[in-house]
């Protein structure tokens, strides 16, 4: 589904990703872990199409298309979703209005019929109930005045509503208490599907107790330095990121 090959990315003149290679197949959950500054969020932003990220080398193929050629909205319509680490507050834009516009724009781009107000509301209610979120949320402006936890849950709700094929979660667990964390994890687990892949970017192993990944990748200094199964997250938690770096050095010697 997603093949990243030797990706090099510069941000404001500084190389952040330095030859990242990763393959994700449909149905898989990949966790990307790593210390601060490793380039984890940059990866998420580059995949979603944020401006200001200069790809100097390498390529990204998503469903047989060159992902980097597509505008952010085209990527969304093709099924890519990024749950933001810092969801943006947009005062004056109502959640319902925004999400209906987003969903219908995606459907239109895919040649599917747009949903009318009733169909949309039905879908909203269905997803809200799965995530135990109040309907009142839909009448508020996008993320405006939301607590940190509410913003993250709103990201997961949007993911549930838009039903992407490739969902990238950028430190969705940061700043969440244990109940909110569980709710986010439940939302993700409910969406696990043979047709859908997840890229879970996280700093801590905690989230991975709830969302058990198929693969764990350790990213250090713009590259993936180690790949393993779910147990790798626990080893990291026990030994810290320095442990991986040391093992790499030992291996190189």
């Amino acid at each position, binding site marked *: 589904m997603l093949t990243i090959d030797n990706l090099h990315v510069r941000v404001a003149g500084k190389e952040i990703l330095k030859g990242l290679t990763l393959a994700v197949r449909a149905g898989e959950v990949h966790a990307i872990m790593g210390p601060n500054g490793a380039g984890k969020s940059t990866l998420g932003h580059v995949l*979603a*199409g*944020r*401006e200001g990220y200069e790809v100097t080398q390498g390529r990204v193929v998503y469903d047989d298309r060159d992902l980097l050629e597509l*505008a*952010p*909205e085209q*990527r*969304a*319509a093709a099924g890519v*979703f*990024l749950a*933001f680490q810092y*969801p*943006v507050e*947009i*005062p*004056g*834009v109502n959640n319902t*209005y*925004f*999400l209906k*516009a*987003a*969903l219908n*724009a*995606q459907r239109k*781009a895919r040649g599917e019929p747009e949903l009318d107000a009733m169909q949309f509301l039905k879908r909203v209610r269905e997803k809200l109930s799965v995530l135990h979120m109040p309907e009142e949320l839909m009448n508020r*402006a996008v993320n405006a005045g939301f607590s940190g936890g509410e913003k993250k849950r709103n990201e997961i709700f*949007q993911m549930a509503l*838009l039903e992407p094929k490739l969902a990238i979660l950028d430190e969705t667990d940061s700043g969440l208490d244990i109940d909110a964390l569980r709710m986010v994890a439940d939302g993700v687990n409910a969406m696990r599907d043979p047709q859908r892949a997840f890229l879970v970017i996280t700093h801590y192993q905690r989230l991975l107790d709830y969302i058990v990944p198929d693969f764990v990748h350790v990213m250090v200094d713009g590259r993936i330095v180690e790949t393993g199964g779910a147990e790798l997250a626990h080893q990291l938690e026990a030994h810290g990121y320095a442990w991986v770096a040391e093992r790499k050095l030992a291996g190189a010697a």
Partner: protein
Amino acid sequence: MDAALLEEFGLGDARERAESWRYSAQALRALGAQSFVAADAAATPPPALMERCDWAETRGRRLVFVNGRLSAAHSDWRALAQARPEVRIDSGPAGATVIVLPAGRTGLLHIVWASVPGAAPGRWNATCAIRLEGGTAHVIEQHLAAPGADVLGALGSELEVAAGAALHLTVLSDLPAAASLYRRVRATLRERGVLCTTHALGGGRLQRFDFACDLAQPEARCELRGVFAAQGREHIDAHLEVRHAARDTASDVLWRGVADGRGRGVLHGAIRVESGADGADARLQTKNLLLSPHAEIDAQPVLEIHADEVKASHGATVGRLDERALFYLRSRGVPERAARAMLIEGFCREAFAVLDDAALGARLDTWLATHVAAGGERRP
């Protein structure tokens, strides 16, 4: 002629006038260089123009002025007269109108000021006083102009809100590039009087709005909300002045400005708390959005406080569209143009948030779609 116009449209002495018009001096000079004939009060407004003010919710409650004079042919306030026979509306041939709303629930009153150009550039002058003696009323003031030659309208309004009364005033202006409008409003609020205004100012070669609100007696309160939107070469200049002259008075000014193309906007917001007006609570916030490198907005907040026990805050910003927010919307599938329009409209809608009238909300949405979303549409 611009000296004469400045004399006519400016307040205070020569220095004060020059200062208050500094951001619009050029636009005024250009108007002054032009010669105008008296606009024809008997002109027939084109049907398309009249359609724009024929709102279902205000039928039978509508006064239509054509080039500053009340047009019997286009006005109809029978429903209002039936519901409130004590309402008095007097309009003289010289363009002076007095509307008295006795205590009670008046409901909607829709006042339309239509400028209809003739063969040569035309001018009209009018005054309108509205006295609310008690209870509540909602006045909608709409400014329209037919396309064509230049028209310059000047309207002086007086609003009086009696003790305990509450006046809602919604103003929508929707002017083509050749129309200019000068409006001066003086509002006086008595004890516990409330004035809530929402302005949507759009278009015009020069639109100048001078608003002075006098919180003359204790516990009077005003909310001044509004949006201006200037595209193309439009020029909109709003001067809001609130004077707290008595104890425990409150004011809340919340404005948004948007300029695109070579549009020019000015928002001068001044709050003055007189000595002895203790317990005053004054808030002033203006945020402005520049959508093109050639657009310009000047935001000028002024607080002048002469009392001791006062709560006052003010803030003014001029910025560009938030690229992070734009990316957020696009990453969810909203195409760039639509995302821009959504952000700009949302930015403005904050100033309209206090309205809980669905029909009027829809009118303001239409206004937004015409005057600000088009800016998003025009972008590549």
